[in-house]
């Protein structure tokens, strides 16, 4: 795939709130990593706690928010209360559906924006809530680590 669009109509169909909240496409399409990896700053592999994905050694391979927090804890992240921007800290958010199953993760960029890899599609910069909805659920847990 080549060519990074300024906007991606596919994403706007999948996540209609992006149109009102605003977003910027920041990469080309890349199949090599997924959102969980991208939130962890890893563009080399797909993180997922089943037998098909990379998962940090010693962390439970299960589809729970706790397992995802355990994975990010291996990178120095610790649980925090909210998504407020705190200078000197880098935050991540874990999105989960109504059943509590993790569906997405994003990394904070600044006070207004987070960065996400949307499945197999592009990386985007977006407000945290813009990806909430039927596909990714809601941002339910936050973690932070010193920059």
């Amino acid at each position: 795939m080549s060519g990074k669009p300024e906007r991606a109509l596919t994403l706007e169909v999948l996540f209609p709130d992006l149109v009102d909240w605003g977003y910027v496409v920041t990469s080309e399409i890349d199949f090599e990593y997924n959102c969980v990896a991208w939130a962890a700053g890893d563009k080399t592999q797909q993180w997922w706690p089943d037998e098909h994905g990379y998962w940090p050694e010693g962390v439970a391979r299960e589809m729970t928010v706790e397992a995802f927090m355990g994975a990010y804890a291996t990178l120095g992240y610790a649980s925090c209360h909210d998504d407020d921007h705190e200078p000197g800290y880098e935050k991540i958010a874990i999105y989960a559906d109504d059943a509590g199953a993790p569906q997405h993760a994003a990394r904070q960029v600044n006070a207004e924006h987070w960065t996400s890899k949307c499945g197999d599609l592009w990386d985007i910069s977006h407000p945290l809530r813009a990806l909430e909805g039927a596909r990714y659920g809601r941002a339910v847990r936050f973690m932070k680590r010193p920059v």
Partner: protein
Amino acid sequence: MNAFKILPISAGELGRRIDADLGRPSLRAAIVSASLAGPVAARIAARLRKLSGRAVAHVEHPLEAAALVRLVRRAGEGLAVVSGIDDFSEEEWQWLDLLRSHLARGGSTWFVLSPRSFGLLERNAPNLASWMGNPLTLMEGERLTREADEDAAQAEFDRLSHVWLDETMFMSSLTRKVQNPAYQAIITMGERAIPPILRDLEREPKLWGPALHAITGAKPVQKGDEGKVRRVAAAWLRWAKANGYEW
């Protein structure tokens, strides 16, 4: 009473005959075993379609002579392939002989017949048979069938993989991607899915490891490489070469 010299030809020669007939009115008969008639007809139709860039009517299992003629004529000046007429009675063949002038149109019409059907054609539709000239019989029917099946498998894979990508492209969950019905349907294709998967893996690595494992039971991916898309693809391609797969 066989007045015709049946010409045994290879699949390649058949292709050249199709090419030579293209663009001029012709009626041809190819004789293959009854079980191969459908796949061979599909193969001929695909070749005609590719060469001419035009629509090709594949008339399969017409109920009667009049229906056959109607469906072929619907192709206008175009191209038609007829198969599946083993159930035609002697009377239907006689009707087809009477209606033969309606089959002589601007394009090529290929009849793919079993030996039994050709016998009925000779006996009951001698005028139509004479218009067809010497029938061709395929020495490489099995190869053609295999190629036709490979074409069909590729088309099925293309359709399913597009659905899969459409429905899962926003997902990060590898589990949900693999559970997707279109992905599972690719697994259900079994061995037929392997060459199309390998071609796609070579072109642009995607999450095909779980499907290949489900179909073959093999585990060529090194421990620790899970999630590394390019390494997983390379491991499967190496495995496929070592195990004699061609794609």
